[in-house]
């Protein structure tokens, strides 16, 4: 079973994503801020990371930096607001994220993208 780490400070959004991914048979780990995200990357060894950009303590960019250092082959999907700075999105892609899903989003669409990335 593939393990997906979801790093999102909005509990309702993260539980919606978790619910949808569990329906597709994935194991999910949920964390609610940047610090917990870094710890979870080290401890959980996930197959995919879904992260927000704007979060307490550590930004999504810092998380991507860390993930690429310790788990360079693990794909990362960024789930963030459309209003985010364009530079931040570009930086995320330059760091090697595989996909960017802007909010508002459809969890079913996210599930399809996750399936495609993990295929």
């Amino acid at each position: 079973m593939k393990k997906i780490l979801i790093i999102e400070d909005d509990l309702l959004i993260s539980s919606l994503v978790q619910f949808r991914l569990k329906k597709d048979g994935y194991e999910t780990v949920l964390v609610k801020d940047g610090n917990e995200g870094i710890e979870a990357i080290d401890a959980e060894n996930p197959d995919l990371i879904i992260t927000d950009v704007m979060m307490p303590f550590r930004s999504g960019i810092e998380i991507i930096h860390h993930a690429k250092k310790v788990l360079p082959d693990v794909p990362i999907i960024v789930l963030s607001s459309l209003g985010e700075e364009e530079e931040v999105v570009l930086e995320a892609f330059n760091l090697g994220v595989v996909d960017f899903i802007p909010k508002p989003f459809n969890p079913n669409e996210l599930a399809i993208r996750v399936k495609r990335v993990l295929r």
Partner: protein
Amino acid sequence: MLKRSFILFLFFCSSLDLYSQGVRDILPDSVSLVEELKNHAYIPNLSYRIQVLGEELPESQQVIDSTFLWTRNERGYLSPDFENGAQLESLVSEIPENSVELQFYVFGEKSSIDGVYRFLETLVDTGDFVYAQNQKSTDRDLVLIANRYHYQPIEAYKNLLLSDNQLFGVTLINVFFVLAAVSMIIFMLIFKKRRNQREEQIKDFENEIIGPLTSLLFEKSVDQINEMSKAEADAIFQDGIIQRKLFKIVLIDKIIGLNKKMKGDFKDKLKLLYQKFGLIEITRQNLEHRKWEKIARGLVQVNEMDLKMLLPLVKEHVNSSNFHVRSLAGATLLNIAEKVDLNFLRDQNYPLSDWQQMHYLRIIKYIAPSKSLQISKLFGSTNQSVREFGFKLVRMLGRVDLIQELHEINEKVSLEERVELIKTYDSLGAHMEVDFINSCMKSNHPELKKEAIKCAGNLGNEESEDIIILLITENPEFKIRKILLNSLLKLNPARFEQFVSDFPMEENLKIKAHLFDPVLSHV
């Protein structure tokens, strides 16, 4: 240092002298002793008797008054025991000196004069006897007197407090401040405790909401949610918790927050759930509230959740005195009303700010293709800023069909509005308005004049060229001269060349060089 020590020594010696004086030093004989005792109404455990010698008692009033108490003995008459020195004085004075004898009793026992001296020495040492006369005033005596009276500070202070108005006032103010401070601290503690309780409860409610709402959104279709009854919807949350107002408020925030971040049928589901949970009643209460922040919250809820049934309440706020409320109400009406006739905007009493215009324009641009907007209604508004906004809308939305309606009000509007009209004609390429443009070029209003000259460069005719040349010859400032020459160049390049060659002034040549420079021509 030595001098100081000597002074201290002298002071010590003098004190020693005062303290070392005994009763015999102060009252050296029996006469002075009796004189002293006469001045004391009472000395503890010391009493007197008078022995009258002879067969008869003196016939004085004092003696007769106490006859029945005199006892007869072999020497004469013996008075009863008495303790008052003043009585001693009066009795002795009534009896001849050679037939009277004074007797002293200490602790009820007859005592000699030496015994009385010793007794008094003891009383002086214990502080129970203070000389009434023939005494030297010493610090020790003052201490002894003071020892007789118990110090009662509270009573004294109370009296002082009540008798001194200023002190009483200051004390009252201090008490008031202390009470106010204590009350504030208590109030803050209670307020903080309640707030913490509320925050904790909100967190609990959020946790209660996440599970059921998530599963509902994924497990039920839009139709299934639509068919749900109120009771079924309420049963989603345990223990009737949805009846609590705070829970409903938290639920509203969560649904609206989620609605902003979700796409597709999730939005429809959330809007349906909002109504099924009866949250619309909270929104209605917000709209009818007196506080503007509650109304604003209600308006956001109507806007986000498309609560069309509450539009009549929204309309009541479009002319609110509160900027935020009327902006939100206007935006909500534009967003969710099926028929947008812009009447609410036409009847605005308050001027539209740039921010409001930008905000409304963004919405109108979005809804214009799907809703029939009656922009021309804005031209008839009594509010100048609304009319100007109407002209801008014609320009921004490219409504060429409204040029004729604008033409009819060309001469009726103010000079400031004409600036917007000119910009609109320029933007829409309204050549038929060239006469109006030419008349505006002659205006004394600098902004209108400038915009009309610019517009003439695009839409002008030969008359415009003549006006431009006339205006240049009036020697305008550099910026206007540049706009004039630029418009002339656009209208008729040959006439421009001719004019510059006829008037080869430095400014004209510089402007020509600028306009022909491919890099600078658009700067």
